[in-house]
């Protein structure tokens, strides 16, 4: 089960935080969840699901090239 964590920045913090799954920038809060034994920071619960169903299996085995 994950949790929402706010992103607290100072005025001089101009660097943005990307999602661990899709790479999209996250504006105000991160979805922090454990997947495959590691804690990750996601932009949304949708990305947690994508990470679990696509990224982790990708790392565990090669893509079947249909091309």
């Amino acid at each position: 089960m994950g949790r929402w964590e706010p992103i607290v920045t100072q005025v001089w913090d101009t660097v943005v935080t990307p999602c661990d799954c899709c790479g999209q920038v996250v504006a105000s809060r991160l979805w922090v969840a454990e997947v495959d034994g590691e804690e990750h920071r996601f932009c949304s619960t949708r990305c947690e699901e994508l990470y679990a169903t696509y990224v982790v299996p990708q790392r565990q085995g090669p893509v079947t090239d249909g091309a």
Partner: protein
Amino acid sequence: MTQIDPVQLTIINNSFVNICREMGITMTRTAFSPIFNEGLDFSCVLFDRNGNMIGQAEFCPAQLAASLFIVRWTVEELGVDSFEPGDVVLHNDPYRGGAHIPEHSVIRPVFHDGELWGFVANVGHLAEIGGKAVGSFAADATEVFQEGLRIPPVKIVSRDENNMDLWRLIMANHRTPRNTWGDLNAQIGSLRVAERRVIELLDRYGAEFVTQAAEELMDYSERWMRSEISAIPDGSYEFTDWMEDDGVVDEPVRFHVTVTIDGDRMIVDWTGSAPQVRGPINATYGVTAGAVYNAVFHLTDSAIPKNSGAYRPIYIIAPPGTVANVVYPGPSVGGNTETHPKLVDMVTGALAPVMREKVAAAEGASACNFLFGGVHPKTGEFYANYHLEGCGWGAKDYDDGNDCTIVVNGNCRNTPVEIFETRYPLETVEYSLIQDSGGAGRHRGGLGTRRIMRIGPGAEVTASALFDRTKGEFRAWGLEGGQPGGYGAIRVKRAGETEFRTFQEVYGTVSASKFTNIVLREGDEVMLDAPGGGGFGDPLERDRDAVARDLEEGIVSAGAARELYGWAAR
């Protein structure tokens, strides 16, 4: 819940689209710069209060996609409660959802009966925003600070009062501030028109009804898109392509994509692309995501209403710190013009084996960015302009590619000769289609263009360029035996000389296609060659009447007809 019938849904959807179209008309009639009133390098969009896109019109695909992230980011960063009636937020930060730094978004909340209902937004490419290069397209930039003035989401208008301190700060950092004033106010003015139309719509049908219709339209688009994706065979499809260099290091740059179809969802993964490069061809997340959506919309039913629902089944992975997702402070100005179209073609190329009837070969995929500025000898005023050129598009299984068409991410128009000659000290010597530049095939790639301009009497012009597909094996690729398209090029013939040469040969630039701030003088001529599109199918199978017509019109030469198409005079 009200029961909304399909006719009512269609009326609401068309109203959303027409509001966006009217914003665009307002822009073209009021903007100062040719990039808006001739080039149409802007986009107008409508969002609900939760940051979902509910309406768009036929503008620039790259900006339309980036607006998804820009508006959502802005609302989340500033907080939805921070918006008041009459506010306008300005934003051009490429790391906060933007496509590249010249594109400035203005966002205005729409209130109805005292409640925030949604947002209207306009994304436009300002022609000059400071930085190291005139025209703010530094082809050799190595960090964002060289690319122009970076603006995070800030209120440029509060309760319909201009924030003049902010305006003055912006004006002080742009080379053509009067144009900035006119163009930004054209963008802001289009928001006011849209706000008025949205309120009229809400008054007529009721806010609750329109909100429900917008949600049902998004669900409808999502169902339709899932149905389209489900029709593609499940599997993972890969494609690799290259750019010739990044403008700073003269080495090719690798892009890689894996497209996975998993039932009714599509996952587009850019893992395997090169690490972020020093030069400005890096794509922002907004560019990469926009390229994916652009490709998917080209491959699916064009009637799907373009709203956030259509995007839901599409998942994108763009690893930060790669050329597919630049991180601060990497440069990215060329990512939107040179990289985006190649990423579109890569998604198309990956799916070509299973969607052959819908895909096209690669397009020229270079906006042929040509930037120039200086003091006009007739007026004594400083000018600057951003120009982009049309290239050839890829052929399809059923037709030839389009000639002279702005890159797939732009949907922009070519700038007429008269604009150069009336507003700038540039005389047009030639503007033509390039013979044999369309890749040979059963269907032929579209032709690129050649534009030669001479620096006028008494003028000194500072020029920059960012092209691609000018050398080696980096031409637009063909499909199923189709040949690659012709090369692009930018060359110079100095006054008194007889031959055009590359800027690398004449001025020693690192890249022949990407350079910054070269000073051209009276009588010098610049040749802009846009690359052609790839062909589709075996050229020997091309319809003989089509070959004869191409010969008659000068689209192919006699030699090419003979050697590539096996043509023997009848």
